């Protein structure tokens, strides 16, 4: 099954999102979030459409979108696992945890498994330092992630 969207579809759907949110003060970020929600990532051509709709230059929209690591330009796997690599988590073994995840999934940071199931991303602080090391699985935070716990999570998302 092909999941690719045509450029016309992108224009229409992104256009509709812009029309819905253009009235907000500072509508660019809410629109980018909504687009990522809609497609799972920011598809090619979306930024041009947003720029046109908001009467901004392509450069400006690109500048904003590329500032935030969370805005993806490629379709992620069905599940997204983010592992915190910030100082507190590092102190509690996040590096080792990350390497473990990479080994298990056979991917590097910001890559997706060959079967398109899991995307592994680094994140810098989830605000969960007290429960370090921390991770985020499909939008939900998880604290005190040991290797075992991570294996458990990986089993779950793979089932």
């Amino acid at each position: 099954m092909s999941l690719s969207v045509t450029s016309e579809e992108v224009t229409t759907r992104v256009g509709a999102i812009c029309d819905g949110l253009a009235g907000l003060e500072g509508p660019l970020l809410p629109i980018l979030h909504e687009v990522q929600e809609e497609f799972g990532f920011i598809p090619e051509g979306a930024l041009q459409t947003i720029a046109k709709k908001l009467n901004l230059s392509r450069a400006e929209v690109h500048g904003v979108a590329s500032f935030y690591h969370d805005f993806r330009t490629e379709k992620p796997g069905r599940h997204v696992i983010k592992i915190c690599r910030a100082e507190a988590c590092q102190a509690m073994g996040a590096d080792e945890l990350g390497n473990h995840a990479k080994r298990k999934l056979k991917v590097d940071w910001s890559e997706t498994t060959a079967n398109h199931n899991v995307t592994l991303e680094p994140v810098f602080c989830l605000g969960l330092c007290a429960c370090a090391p921390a991770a985020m699985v499909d939008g939900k935070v998880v604290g005190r992630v040991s290797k075992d716990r991570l294996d458990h999570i990986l089993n779950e998302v793979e089932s």
Partner: protein
Amino acid sequence: MSLVTEIDYGTPAVKSEKTVTLNIDGFDVTVPEGTSVMRASMEAGIEIPKLCATDMVDAFGSCRLCLVEIEGRRGTPSSCTTPVSEGMVVHTQNDRLKKLRRGVMELYISDHPLDCLTCAANGDCELQDMAGAVGLRDVRYGYEGENHVKTRQNGEENPRYMAKDESNPYFTYDPSKCIVCSRCVRACEEVQGTFALTIEGRGFESRVSPGMHEDFLSSECVSCGACVQACPTATLQEKSIIDIGQPEHSVVTTCAYCGVGCSFKAEMRGDELVRMVPYKDGKANRGHSCVKGRFAYGYASHQDRILNPMIRENVNDPWREVSWEEALTYTANKFRSLQEKYGRESIGGITSSRCTNEETFLVQKLIRAGFGNNNVDTCARVCHSPTGYGLKTTFGTSAGTQDFDSVEQTDVVIVIGANPTDGHPVFASRLKKRLRAGAKLIVIDPRRIDLVRSPHIEAAAHLPLRPGSNVAVLTALAHVIVTEDLYDEAFIREKCDWSEFEDWAAFVADAKNSPEEVEKISGVPADEIRKAARIFATGGNGAIYYGLGVTEHSQGSTTVMAIANLAMATGNIGRPGVGVNPLRGQNNVQGSCDMGSFPHELPGYRHISDDGTRDIFEKLWGVKLNDEPGLRIPNMLDAAVDGTFRGIYIQGEDILQSDPDTKHVAAGLAAMECVVVHDLFLNETANYAHVFLPGSTFLEKDGTFTNAERRINRVRRVMKPKNGYADWEVTQNLARAMGLDWNYTHPSQIMDEIAATTPSFAGVSYDLLEREGSVQWPCNEKAPTGTPVMHIGGFVRGKGKFVVTEYVATDEKTGPRFPLLLTTGRILSQYNVGAQTRRTQNSVWHEEDLLEIHPHDAEQRGIRDGDWIRLASRSGETTLRTKITDRVAPGVVYTTFHHPGTQANVITTDFTDWATNCPEYKVTAVQVSASNGPTEWQVEYDEQAKQSRRILPAPDAAE
């Protein structure tokens, strides 16, 4: 001579009545409230180290080099973002600050190449200067860490390294040298207003990105060069600097492209021009420029330039290079013999809007005093002659009412029949800046020009009228203003003739001028017209800017008067922020009109029949002047075809390409016995010439240009004329060959003669221009340093005159054979007939003229984007390629006239403005159909052009 260096104050000047006194390093400084500590310090002569600040853009506070200590405040605030306050005590240097600054510089330099000696910016690099200023001696971090500098790192490719972007023909972007100070990004946004650049990514990943990580050429960049000027390092660098090296001296001069009249520093190395840098003290451009002025000067040294005089008996012969003496004697004898044979009126001349005031003055003097007739005209005939007529009739002067600074105080702007972002880019940038600050914009144009909607700019109303219906739409705007009581009665009663106003008001209030009726003629929805009228009449300071889309119509003069009516009715004349502002096409159109280039007017717009005026010149020149107006360009051509007009001296103009109805022009020229073309290149007109006198560029002569705001700007010679003589010298030598006793040794003497004979120039002298930089005429006893805004306190003519502007449809009508309306315009990168810009790398942006056509009209004709099409009118036909776009309305097509291969003027008709003969370029009924290639005319023309450009080898080489 030395390099003209301008002080960089770090942050822009602040306009404030209130001043504040503070103490910096022990010195008291008084500055306007709101000024930054950095600027105040620079004004006191103390330079605070800085990298991300420059006075063309607002403070940003990112480089952390300009930190200072302020007594009573904590920490070390950045001086660029800290405003001054009363009694503030600032220290710019102490041990703590030195240490901080060195630390910052160490970080910068740890990720910057150390190739200063071979770097193009060597000697002109602020990073280098700052390293020196802070006393950087060592970089503790070393250079081995992660960086953007090295192509390879630890034996592998360095993923952060980005190769140089050389896509722009004039400058390079070398990301490895970038310190991400954002000056380029901010210059693009704040100065130019294009927003083509951004910082992509974040933290150590931050990079300057044109568009969406594109190269410069494919991004939104318009190549104005503001970023290059702003860059403190060699990251954005002119290719000419890379090729030649740093300049060693510079001369302030004036751009020879459009009517904005930007001031530039021509930066030189010996007699080689290294680069043009806009001059911050230039009052028209305030330190900004466009792609033409800054970069497109290569034509001056192009191989096509003709440097030796040439003659030929017959236009079918090849050219023969001759000495100056032979060429001038030949011309003088020929002209005299034509006059003996066919009468005094059988020859004439055309002055150039590209040449200086002094040169124009001499050409008309040669014709009036030497030829003994008034057969002098100028290319303003085909552009802004209706402006002269219309504004003289209503206000009393043939010129715009404001200076460009005035736009900073405007609240509502009407742009009609002009496309400033392409035609007058530097003015457009100033306008856009004001629009971003909140002023409203109304665009009246058949085409959706960039100003209608482009990043951060959106017109409050766009009236996409059918070409030719300007008068109807303007009168409908007046209808709304009068019938809804939105006019300024107090202003009109005080400054204008009230009974004329009443007549006019009764006329515009007539139901036939209502927006609803006009909708039928113009295609503009009545509601939009009403909305626009209300915005203009009630929005505060209202200014109208217009271009050739107003004048180049059969009702051009009427439209100018309708504009004047609107301004008077709403009280928008006589103070900053308002006014009627023609955007002049060529660098010196205003000046060439001022200098008496029209057959009926002596310098200063005084009629030739006026005995008093003639007397002034007759006494000075020692000749009797003819009191009858001479022939206009179209009349000269008609008379040539009739056989009564036999010879012409054309300075710096290409009438064959620029004037309407090319075939008629060609027939007129072909019928003459002596056509003398004085130009840089063998232009299209030269195909019919018998004598070619090589011209000099603006870089090669002294003189003055007068821009659209009546500003007289100095043109200064930076190199000797490649052809041997400046144009004024050539005209003088021709005059001498014809027996006139002229002995000017410098153009300043010509200006003295202009001042002595022309009241509006009475106070102008080169000394004054040297002192003031520039002045706006009238400049005389009453206004010794010129007049930025005209008609303050009352109109020059006395009372402002309302003129009834009855709409009369043009005779050029669409019908079944020619159902579309063609209108013409220009594009940013090319200029006029393209003689100069086509001979520069500007052609990468526009290598051919394209026909813009609406998708609906294209589909009906089975035409796809990029197809060759045949464009035919009642006058002729040509072929060119299409661009399908909804910028134009259905029923309207649009093209440019920059390329002789297209010859868009084969299509245009010989209908003209009723008052001034200004051709109706902007409306031609046409048909568009599929085509395989050039028309017969284009093939023939090409062949003839090739034939007529043959030059015989010099005799000694042939032997």
